[in-house]
């Protein structure tokens, strides 16, 4: 290959430097937030004059933050379950089915990924207004399902395409019904795809803010919405603390997804 890293010679040093700078640029705000959440300054002073867990204590003592955390978590879990379930069924249809308009249907399933989120949010808001779903749990779930589903369909379709269909056929010849063969053989065979579908669906809902702002009501707010709302009133280190919690969960899940990918390759 023209740009073989091993053959770049001393350019590698420069490349490494640029990569480090870009990495720092991306990670610095996160590191800053995490540091501030442990800082003792009320005014988010940097560097912090001392260290404390006070903001975390305040955070976990505040029923509103806890409520939002729980709301976010519940929505994300329900979205994950539905997204993987529907995504699996859609993927079977899209990869195995032979019908006209299949590619069109696949594109349609994936449009929420390319549509500007604001457009989607406004459309969902207007639509849900008629159905009285705005501000409801179901409304949140449905809206987040729309953006989570493409992740599931991509992950599961890919896994299904790599899974040799003859293996499922072999299970059927062995005496399993087509459904039994899918449940006992094919689904375990694509489990890595199912797990990454679950992780990305969860994250799509968990840290989604634009649609959530439209969907939220005073008594049903997800974590990102509350952070956003609180930020506009006062800049408390509690926000840094909750952000850190959010980051930790997201990073943990991303690490899990990366591990799964590595597992799938080996």
């Amino acid at each position, binding site marked *: 290959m023209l740009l073989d890293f091993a053959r770049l010679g001393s350019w590698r040093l420069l490349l490494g430097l640029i990569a480090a700078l870009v990495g720092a640029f991306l990670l610095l705000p996160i590191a800053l937030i995490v540091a501030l959440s442990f800082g003792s300054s009320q005014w988010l002073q940097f560097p912090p004059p001392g260290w404390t867990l006070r903001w975390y204590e305040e955070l976990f003592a505040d029923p509103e933050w806890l409520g939002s955390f729980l709301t976010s978590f519940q929505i994300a879990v329900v979205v994950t379950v539905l997204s993987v379930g529907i995504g699996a069924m859609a993927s079977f249809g899209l990869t195995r089915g032979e019908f006209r308009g299949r590619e069109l249907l696949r594109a349609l399933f994936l449009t929420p990924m390319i549509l500007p989120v604001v457009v989607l949010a406004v459309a969902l808001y207007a639509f849900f207004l008629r159905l009285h779903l705005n501000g409801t749990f179901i409304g949140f779930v449905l809206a987040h399902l729309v953006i989570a589903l493409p992740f599931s369909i991509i992950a599961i379709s890919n896994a299904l395409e790599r899974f040799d269909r003859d293996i499922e056929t072999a299970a*059927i010849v062995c005496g399993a019904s087509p459904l039994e063969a899918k449940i006992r053989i094919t689904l375990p065979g694509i*489990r890595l795809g199912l797990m990454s579908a679950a992780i990305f669906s969860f994250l799509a809902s968990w840290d989604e803010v634009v649609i959530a702002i439209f969907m939220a009501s005073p008594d049903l707010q997800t974590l990102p919405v509350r952070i956003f709302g609180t930020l506009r009133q006062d800049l408390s280190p509690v926000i840094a603390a909750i952000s850190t919690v959010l980051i930790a969960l997201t990073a943990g899940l991303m690490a899990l997804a990366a591990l799964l990918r590595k597992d799938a390759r080996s």
Partner: protein
Amino acid sequence: MTFLDIRNVSKHFGSVAAVSNVSLEIARGEFVTFLGPSGSGKSTTLYMIAGFFEPSAGDIRIDGAGILGLPSNKRNIGMVFQRYTLFPHLTVAENVAFPLRVRRRPQAEVARKVEEMLALVRLDRFADRMPAQLSGGQQQRVALARALAYDPPLLLMDEPLSALDKKLREEIQAEIRRIHRETGVTILYVTHDQEEALSLSDRVALFNHGRIEQVGKGRELYEQPSTRFVAGFVGHSNFLDCTVAARNDHRADVVFPDGSRLPGTPVHRGAHAGAAAGLMIRPDRVRIGARGAAATSAGVDAVLSDATFIGDTFHFVATTAWGAPVSIRVPASAPMPHQHAVGDRVRLSWDPGQARLFDN
């Protein structure tokens, strides 16, 4: 008595006739291979028996009962696929146990049967391995154990060894022959490797363009091919252009382009007087003699144009007076080859009964 009865079966995919009017009767315990070039309909026929495709016409019966109404999972047929199809998340033992588990057999029976099957394919020590930890040959042997675990009366195999190298292939072929002897299962085996077909099976069904050209023992196909395709596909052969001069019941006299006349070549069908035909003679049945000496035997004059020594045989190519190449194989143990060199003018002869005449 007929065990598997394939009657006038056809399969069309749109306008493509993948299988046309195939009929075949197979006895219990027989080992039959489907041999033929790529796309000749071997797999499609097998898949109709397995239940993956529904025939466009015809009937398939096992022990006199039609099976076309049954879905694949109810046909109780064993199958080994061309690609590796072990269940990747289950151990070797669990793979073999799977068909018994879906049949809800008691645990003790499952354990006993798994052990018996793994012993049959000589993989007892691999019970706890995962499929990814096995070689290709081992995987196909486990697949064989899995396919036999529920004692199906019929075992289908679709080119199960085509992904393996030659040495391993021959090793597993021997295993398959042994397992066939030990279990008595009826086997239908698809291959496009004629050596494999001839060495494994009791009978060979030769497919071409969705039809069976000929069914019979390997020797019959080799020695009494009923069509030009069979003659060309099974073993090596020479085809010499000629014209039919006279024809009686099963023999014909032919005239070669150089005017030489040859009497008494067997004809299976066709080859009417005056028609252009092809005379088929196997390379190992052609004798090389000195010109003029023994012109009494049937044959043609030619010039040796190539000679190669390939281990246990000499391979000659001779060119006839009208420019047709004739390939000749002589065992290295025969004393004759040393007398001939490239450029020699020779007489090629053969026993007329060993040649065969086909329409062009």
